[in-house]
């Protein structure tokens, strides 16, 4: 489907927010695939960061040529987009004390999640390299603690360090961020025996579950199994995932 871009602007160094007309009904943790044009071939996956009546937003970082091209798109341009795709975060009525842990460009989908969970008691731990983004928006939904690697804002260090201080009395953890962070979140969740879902990344082909390229190693009773990040995920129970 072709959708009209409503806004595409840099919100901090190299990080952009793109608002797009959209007619699907996404849940937090789901993603869209965008044809970024130029000489890219495959569509690129981006998590949905916000959703309103007829619009979604994504927040992305310039990584390679696809995201670079995307950063040049202007309001009123159109983009070829599919989605929403994938299995997002499961939300449970029974859990009220929730910890959200995000790192870097893994943070955007957690904003949409926080918005949907806003009736709950949310603790939100966010980690950045240096420049922070989306923090004010998170503050609308819960208590935010911040870690930056260079100490630019909040605590100097990793999000996992601040997470440790917040985990007491928590019923459920949601995490998204770089691999090492997710592994640490998983380990801590297991240590404290808190249920935990994490959103993982893998390079994609079809984005809809047909091509088997987006393999995520998961535990089974008899050994392991490759599940599909685009269809079974991107959100998995942290216990399932084998890093």
């Amino acid at each position, binding site marked *: 489907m072709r959708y009209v871009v409503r806004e595409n602007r840099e919100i901090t160094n190299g990080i952009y927010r793109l608002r797009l007309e959209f007619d699907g009904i996404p849940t937090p943790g789901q993603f869209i695939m965008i044809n970024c044009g130029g000489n890219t*071939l495959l569509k690129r996956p981006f998590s949905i960061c916000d959703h309103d009546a007829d619009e979604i937003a994504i927040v992305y970082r310039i990584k390679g040529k696809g995201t670079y091209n995307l950063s040049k798109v202007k309001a009123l341009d159109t983009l070829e987009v599919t989605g929403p795709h994938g299995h997002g975060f499961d939300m449970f009525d029974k859990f009220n004390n929730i910890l959200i842990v995000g790192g870097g460009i893994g943070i955007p989908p957690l904003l949409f999640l926080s918005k949907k969970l806003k009736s709950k008691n949310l603790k939100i731990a966010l980690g950045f390299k240096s420049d922070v983004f989306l923090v004010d928006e998170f503050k609308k939904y819960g208590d935010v603690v911040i870690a930056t690697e260079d100490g630019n804002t909040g605590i100097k260090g990793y999000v996992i360090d601040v997470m440790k201080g917040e985990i007491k009395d928590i019923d459920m953890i949601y995490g998204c961020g770089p691999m090492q962070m997710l592994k640490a979140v998983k380990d801590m969740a297991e240590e404290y025996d808190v249920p935990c879902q994490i959103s993982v990344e893998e390079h*994609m082909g079809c984005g809809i*579950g047909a*091509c*088997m390229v*987006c393999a995520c190693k998961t535990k089974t009773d008899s050994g392991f199994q*490759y599940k599909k990040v685009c269809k079974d995920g991107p959100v998995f129970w942290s216990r399932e995932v084998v890093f």
Partner: protein
Amino acid sequence: MNLKINIGNLELKNPVLVASGTFGFGKEYSHYIDLDDLGGIMVKGLTLYPKEGNPPPRIYETPSGILNSVGLQNPGVDVFIKDELPFLNRFNTKVIANIAGETIEEFVSLAQKLNIDGVDALEINVSCPNVKEGGMSFGVDPNSVYAITKKVKQVSNKTVIVKLTPNVTDIKIYAKAAEDGGADAISLINTVTGMAIDINTRRPVFKNVFAGLSGPAIKPIALKNVYEAKRAVSIPVIGMGGISSAEDALEFMIAGATAVAVGTYNFISPTGSIDILEGIKKYMLRNSIFDVNQLINSINV
């Protein structure tokens, strides 16, 4: 306008298929297109036992192409028959089961298991570059191609298509080996073997080092192989490799393909296969061609 074409005894309602491994077992794409509109579906490669496939990463974008190293992850032929085939059979399209044995005996067992209603043809995959056993090692040996084809034909009551690899010096020999073995048709090309290196870690991107190149980048290579193979055999040829537009598909048909299969392009556009079919129709109208068979092998050299 007639779009019907024949592959051996099998009549396809139109010449646009989807290529094995790029379309799963059809379910996912059924949300984007009406599967009834396709000439046929070549399902993901099936093995005798479930196969976990290769560790990630399994895909890497290259200029106008992709390298993949899936390693034939699939639930195995039995689960396919039980869980996937019934869904496919709800549609009025042909089901072509792509089979990948590690030994000749496995190919025979796979063919026997698939002698069932709801399967219209077999595609013998002797050209997968991403597995250790079988795969392309068969496909680069004309004797293996001949032997596997012959054995499968002996036990199968289906239309038998042999899928060839382009990673050979002379495709004609392999096309002929398949025909001599009794194949009803050949299909080509499977992926071209390629490689990528991460210069920061100085490691190959893929665990298996090599992977299979597909997509628009390989189209000129695929077209050459289809054209050459067609000139070596009298059985139908199913052409594939980089097809991303009706124009591409038409090139293959003019070069000698009776049908074409859309592969990587499904990823770029989930409605791509049907858009290509529509484009072929438009070209036919524009050029007053009322039977698609008139296009096949119509090249003027």
